[in-house]
């Protein structure tokens, strides 16, 4: 039986050959198989799939779909072959609704008018069947990152595909959502469809994939049946050597004097982009040297909380104080000056200037400081030295400090934000999905960095869809549900307890709540 997809000897370079993203890669996707693609940040996973989807033209190499050689010059060609792709970075038009996005470019039964109504009902049906909750009538800009991810997936499914490419689709989904999502992939497989799943989470490969391909530095490292391999072997293939995971976490001692409250929030309420209540009378505080993990299904107010705590969103009522200074109603600049670092969930829209180069992105919060300017003029030497240091320390894979961040792989973009935000001894860190899209090594490194910052006295608010990450790092854990914190429990609580709280059951004893 012919393969669903067979790519041979694919080469692709960028910047006139300066960056060799793919170097003679072979890739085969079996029919009715789920195929995982693994590799470190910048290994070439996205580039390989962009070649298959027609977003990039390969320099050389051939592609066969269902046994027939094909030329794929643009996404339209790929779609005609039944290929659909959910991108690592969102592609929906932000000013339009989810339903409008879905029908974009599709023939309409009511031509020349759009048939939004039937699209909406079909979307709702899909979202029910697959357990991915979406609101077809909402404008994309109003959605949280998790909601956007679900909308992206559903809008590709809507078109009906035989070969589905998923580029890190689970990065912002909660474990429960991921489970439902995988069930859906299983169903598709049973219907004879083939799926490519790019991920950094090895467990997902063993949960669901039949075959796996590992890329390393643009080359094929190995391609195997999942049943024939182990986590260790795959990791070794990715990194090129054995990796040991030993995250060291010192135990947390509550400060007896209680005078070290770095971040304190009182009766805090705020609205979301749709103008509905997002935060409902929150009360909590974080001490120096403490990590408060915030778990919860995405869209329950986590993003709004992070924005409020950095001055990016107006609050309706309540009080925020940093280090004892009230910041209520202050501009983002005030928060930055008080030492509040922010790792935003949406790196493209918020966290970096995509068209600026690496070195300038590393100073977008510091460019007006003495280190980087003299008499109001920027010191390019100092800016470049800072970039070289960050690139070395965080192992950012880039062709140089003057490369535009748009050209970097997703994980390497995230590293730029981390280098900037963690680099200058912040007092408070608001971290929203800090390891989203990072490879195993980088994830471990960032977690280590967060623990280091905590040991150096930072107060950290950690929002993550990854429950394990929360359990591993947090000293206390709060669960957000419909804009409220369903109790705050010690870090040693069990997964089940937290899982229940995420569904809205508040089973904490009153004294465990830190008001």
């Amino acid at each position: 039986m012919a393969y669903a997809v067979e790519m041979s000897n694919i080469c692709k370079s960028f910047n006139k050959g300066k960056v060799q993203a793919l170097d003679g890669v072979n890739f085969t996707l079996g029919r009715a198989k789920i195929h995982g693609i693994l590799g470190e940040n910048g290994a070439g996973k996205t580039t390989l799939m962009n070649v298959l989807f027609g977003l990039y033209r390969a320099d050389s190499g051939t592609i066969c779909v269902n046994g027939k050689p094909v030329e794929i010059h643009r996404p339209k060609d790929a779609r005609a072959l039944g290929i659909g792709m959910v991108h690592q970075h969102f592609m929906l038009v932000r000013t339009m609704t989810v339903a409008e996005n879905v029908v974009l470019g599709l023939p309409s039964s009511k031509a020349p008018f759009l048939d939004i109504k039937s699209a909406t009902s079909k979307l709702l049906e899909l979202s029910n069947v697959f357990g991915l909750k979406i609101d077809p009538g909402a404008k994309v800009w109003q959605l949280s990152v998790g909601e956007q991810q679900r909308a992206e997936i559903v809008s590709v499914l809507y078109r009906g595909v035989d070969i589905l490419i998923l580029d890190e689709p689970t990065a912002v989904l909660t474990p429960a959502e991921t489970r439902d999502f995988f069930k859906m992939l299983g169903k598709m497989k049973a219907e004879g469809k083939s799926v490519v799943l790019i991920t950094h989470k090895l467990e997902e490969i063993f949960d669901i994939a039949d075959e796996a391909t590992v890329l390393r530095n643009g080359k094929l490292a190995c391609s195997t049946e999942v049943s024939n391999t182990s986590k260790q072997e795959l990791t070794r293939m990715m990194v090129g050597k054995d990796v040991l995971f030993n995250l060291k976490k010192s135990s947390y001692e509550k400060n007896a004097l209680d005078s070290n409250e770095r971040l304190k929030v009182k009766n805090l309420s705020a609205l979301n982009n749709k103008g509905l209540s997002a935060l409902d009378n929150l009360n909590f505080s974080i001490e120096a040297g403490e990590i408060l993990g915030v778990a919860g299904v995405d869209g329950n107010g986590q993003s709004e909380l992070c924005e409020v705590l950095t001055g990016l969103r107006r609050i309706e009522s309540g009080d925020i104080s940093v280090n004892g200074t009230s910041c209520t109603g202050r501009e983002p600049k005030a928060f930055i000056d008080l030492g509040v670092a922010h790792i935003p969930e949406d790196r493209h829209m918020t966290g970096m200037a995509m068209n600026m180069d690496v070195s300038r992105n590393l100073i977008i919060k510091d460019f007006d400081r003495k280190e980087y300017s003299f008499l109001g003029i920027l010191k390019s030497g100092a800016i470049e030295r800072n970039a070289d240091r960050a690139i070395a320390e965080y192992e950012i894979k880039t062709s140089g400090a003057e490369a535009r961040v748009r050209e970097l792989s997703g994980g390497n973009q995230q590293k730029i934000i981390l280098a900037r935000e963690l680099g200058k001894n912040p007092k408070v860190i608001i971290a929203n999905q800090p390891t989203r899209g990072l490879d195993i090594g980088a994830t471990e490194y960032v977690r280590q960095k967060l623990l280091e910052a905590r040991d150096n006295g930072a107060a950290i608010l950690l929002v993550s869809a990854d429950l394990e990450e929360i359990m591993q790092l947090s000293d206390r854990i709060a669960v957000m549900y419909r804009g409220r914190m369903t109790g705050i429990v010690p870090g040693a609580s069990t997964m089940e307890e937290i899982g229940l709280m995420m569904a809205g059951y508040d089973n904490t004893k009153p004294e465990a709540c830190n008001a």
Partner: protein
Amino acid sequence: MTEATAKSAFNSVISAVTAVFTALIFGFVLLWVCGYDAVKAYTTMFNGAFGSANRFAETIVKTIPLTVMALGTAIAFKSKIWNIGGNGQFIVGGALSLYVALNFKLPALIMFPLSIFMAFAGGALWGGLAGYLKAKYNANEVITTLMLNYIASFLLAWLVRGPMMDPAGFGFPQTPLIDKSLQLSSLLAGTRLHSGFIIAVIIVILCWILSRSIFGFRMELIGESHEVAAYSGINVKKTTLMTMLISGGLAGLAGWNEVFGLHHRLLDDVAGNYGSMAIVIALLGGLHPLGIFVSGLLFSALLVGGGTMQRMSGIPLSLVDIIQGTVIIFVISRAALTLKSK
């Protein structure tokens, strides 16, 4: 100057030159196909722009206001603020500085900087009005600056026929001349080339410094995205307003240059279609001060030389227009291509 900045300056100049020359080649073929003597036409055009001291001076005289205005346009465009109100800002700046020069008896040493200041302030007022409306009410600057253009040009028409009209001007719609001591000195005897050129060069340098400054960085971040700018701690509204003040102020300075250096008075329609040309020059120069200076020069040569070509060789002006139009198309398609190739 580091390697990267030298490279970006070089690139902006090179691409401006390439666009103009490609358009010229296109025009050459067009003339030839239409049965004109293309070689002769182009020789005439070149001589018209550079052929004698006088022709060269005329080219530079055109370059001065166009470049300064394009610098102002570029500053707004870099922040993705589409200020198309250069004409209005030019007029208000010119009028305000002229008003001061005509009505106050001050020594030239004081009047000179004062008039420059008033020109900048006038342009900044007109630009800042649009900036304020954008920052405060999110009013679309394309519409507000365009409307302010109309207001300014009617204001000018009224001024030169009413309160500021030259009583000894036989009813021409123009103001009296400013005092001899305030008129910019000639740079080249026997031509209209005036020392405003030196001021223009200084403004180019200042704009280049501005683009490398803290404030320039702020404006660039605003142009990247308001979300990123806010995240970086920048006050988006304030920076938007400041950008429009500077952008308008520069157009006002262009007006000052034209009034004090060339006409020595206000005329009806003194700004002509400088505003739209400034937009083309700003884009042609890749929004980079040095690139703008070079494209300002090239574009002025095209204008002055094209005029001569039409007068001397009987080639219809519409063909000259077509060549200029081709430059614009090349500029726009280059901008589109750089966006697409990413």
